[in-house]
């Protein structure tokens, strides 16, 4: 199997106009979602970024440089692992894990970051800024900035700084400056506000490296394209292992980059159910969730129209999740479109369910999943037993859980 099956899908050149993979339109929209809702100061830079990205996509040299770094630095391809003991314990469908947690820095985040950093270099930008929630995107960004000798500043909500101390320390070791953002609840939404404020003040020198499939166009499509390596590999790997496509693919969704990366190459395969798992927090109806699709409505924030948790007056509400990486009141616009069209199914898993899935995977497969990914596993624990033994479910194991052991210990009543 090639390390990079099906590269051409990234350019979408071979796709028919009726493909679900052809979005966004010229206005950066997926159905009613997406767009470019930024202050005028940022319009010229995002249009410049879009032109630079289109030029890079058309340049085989860019693709070669990215493939080289994905293989020899990120460590791709990541394995597709048949989780035999988990499958046996759940008693139903065969469960495969797409092992994105084995990438360098421990999550899928580096796929996108590697693509964007190479683009930033092509654009001659010397200073990189990024927002981060759990710290995985911040660590990935700090890593590539160290690799290429670029200045790096990371914006992280102060609540997240406290609950993700190991990642804060990692970013600092990698040479990044970490700003603890005090506004609001001090989580990912506030970090993104502050990163946009920095960008508007430093547009000439600075590249804003967004970590998820959200924000103004071209970010949702660009980040998706860089994450599609997950789904492209999965398709080739499952065909090699089983001779057919899976019945369902399950991934957690906060902003939704790992889910979009594994879903997108399967959008036109109607037999493959695509299931996104939102963080239900204390429960969908607890008022403490991060379930933008299941409990939000469309609105405009952070450069795009999408489903948002908001009050009756259009004020954005604070999200809640045990997982810092899912603790965001919005979601990428292409997910909103998949939700509206029914192509994607979006369900929820609570904090408690995610914790149970975390310990279950550790016990059965010897893998500590990130709490984010544990939400996807929690849904598989409900889904797999309802399916026959010949059914195949692939779970995107988007990150490893070492960063979460303090949070998990606290919830299990253990003092470290």
């Amino acid at each position, binding site marked *: 199997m090639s390390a990079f099956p099906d590269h051409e899908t990234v350019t979408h050149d071979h796709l028919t106009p009726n493909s679900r993979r052809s979005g966004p339109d010229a*206005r950066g929209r997926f159905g009613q979602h997406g*767009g*470019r*809702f*930024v*202050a*005028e*100061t*940022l*319009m*010229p*830079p995002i249009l410049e970024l879009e032109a630079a990205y289109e030029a890079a996509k058309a340049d085989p040299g860019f693709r070669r440089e990215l493939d080289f770094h994905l293989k020899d630095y990120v460590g791709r391809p990541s394995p597709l692992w048949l989780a035999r003991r988990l499958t046996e314990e759940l008693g139903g469908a065969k469960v495969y894990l797409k092992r994105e947690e084995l990438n360098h820095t421990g999550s899928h985040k580096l796929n996108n970051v590697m693509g964007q950093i190479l683009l930033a270099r092509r654009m001659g930008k010397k200073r990189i800024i990024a927002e981060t929630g759990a710290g995985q995107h911040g660590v990935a960004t700090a890593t590539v900035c160290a690799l290429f000798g670029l200045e790096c500043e990371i914006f992280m909500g102060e609540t997240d700084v406290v609950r993700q101390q190991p990642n804060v320390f990692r970013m600092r070791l990698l040479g990044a400056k970490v700003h603890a953002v005090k*506004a*609001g609840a001090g989580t990912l*939404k506030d970090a993104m*506000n502050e990163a*946009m*404020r920095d960008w*508007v*003040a*430093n*547009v*000439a020198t600075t590249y804003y490296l967004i970590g998820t499939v959200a924000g103004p166009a071209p970010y949702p499509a660009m980040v998706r394209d860089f994450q599609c390596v997950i789904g492209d590999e999965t398709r080739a790997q499952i065909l090699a292992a089983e001779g057919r496509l899976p019945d369902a693919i399950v991934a957690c969704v906060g902003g939704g980059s790992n889910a979009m990366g594994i879903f997108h190459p399967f959008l036109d395969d109607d037999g493959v159910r695509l299931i996104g798992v939102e963080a239900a927090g204390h429960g969908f109806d607890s008022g403490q969730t991060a379930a933008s699709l299941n409990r939000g409505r469309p*609105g*405009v*924030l*952070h*450069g795009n129209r999408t489903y*948002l948790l*908001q009050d*009756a*007056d*259009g*004020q*954005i*509400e604070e999200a809640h999740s045990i997982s810092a990486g899912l603790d965001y009141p919005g979601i990428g616009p292409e997910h909103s479109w998949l939700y509206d069209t029914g192509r994607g199914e979006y369900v929820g898993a609570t904090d408690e369910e995610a914790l149970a899935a975390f310990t279950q995977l550790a016990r059965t497969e010897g893998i500590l999943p990130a709490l984010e990914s544990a939400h996807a596993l929690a849904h598989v624990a409900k889904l797999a037993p309802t399916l026959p033994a010949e059914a195949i479910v692939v779970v995107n194991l988007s990150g490893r859980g070492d960063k979460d052991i303090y949070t998990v210990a606290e919830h299990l009543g253990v003092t470290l």
Partner: protein
Amino acid sequence: MSRIAGRFAELAAAGRGALIPYLQAYDPDLATSEAILAGMAEAGADLIEIGVPFSDPMADGPTIQRAARRGLAAGATLAGVLAMVARFRAHDTTTPVVLMGYLNPIDSYGPERFCNDAAAAGVDGLIVVDMPAEEADLLAPHAAAAGLDIIRLVAPTTDAARLPVVLEGASGFIYYVSITGITGTRSASSDELAAALPRIRAASRLPVAIGFGVRTPAQAAGAARIGDAAVVASVLIETLAATLDDRGRATPGTVDSVLAEVRALAAAVRAPQKIKEDVR
């Protein structure tokens, strides 16, 4: 003629630029912000800009972020802000009022209903920070039907090729964001302003208001001379904030302190200048 166009025509005839002070609605409470609004015209405001509190003010610095939080804590809603303008209009039918805010509360209210209700309340123009020209079709037809001006923002990053895109369908006045940055941080020099204005003048005959970083009476006078109006925001909020008690509540001096500062700004803007050069 709209109130905004009428006001700029009067001032052009009088040979001076406009002062546009800003207040955040409901900051720190409805009654105080309403008293400030009611006193601003008498203190020398030629137009008034009212900030609509939003949970995520991405273009604003810490001063206006805190003002927005105080406003929301005091119960601000978009409907409440419109009601506040309607009460103001019962006593002042001439001073133009422009609402400045972010798109989501308007989107949530419903763009068409919002434009109709805003016009009925006596609002004259809208500045929607996160709605660039490319996305303005969401609001523009409804605003035009209701007789509201959508004030377009031009930034230092807006190049000559882009100006016609930004100014397509502009009305009322043009808001020149004089720095690349957020509100209340740094100021543009008068040389920078003088260099920036001719290309905007060449692209439009609408009056140009200069905002972001206009803080002192001298800066306001300079901006109103180089452009057609000076928007002063963060420094007025800082003055208000400095009068609040340790629980963030208004004190007896709050309203007067803000209005005294508006008076000082207005005196500088109205001071005799050499005849305003026609830089068109």
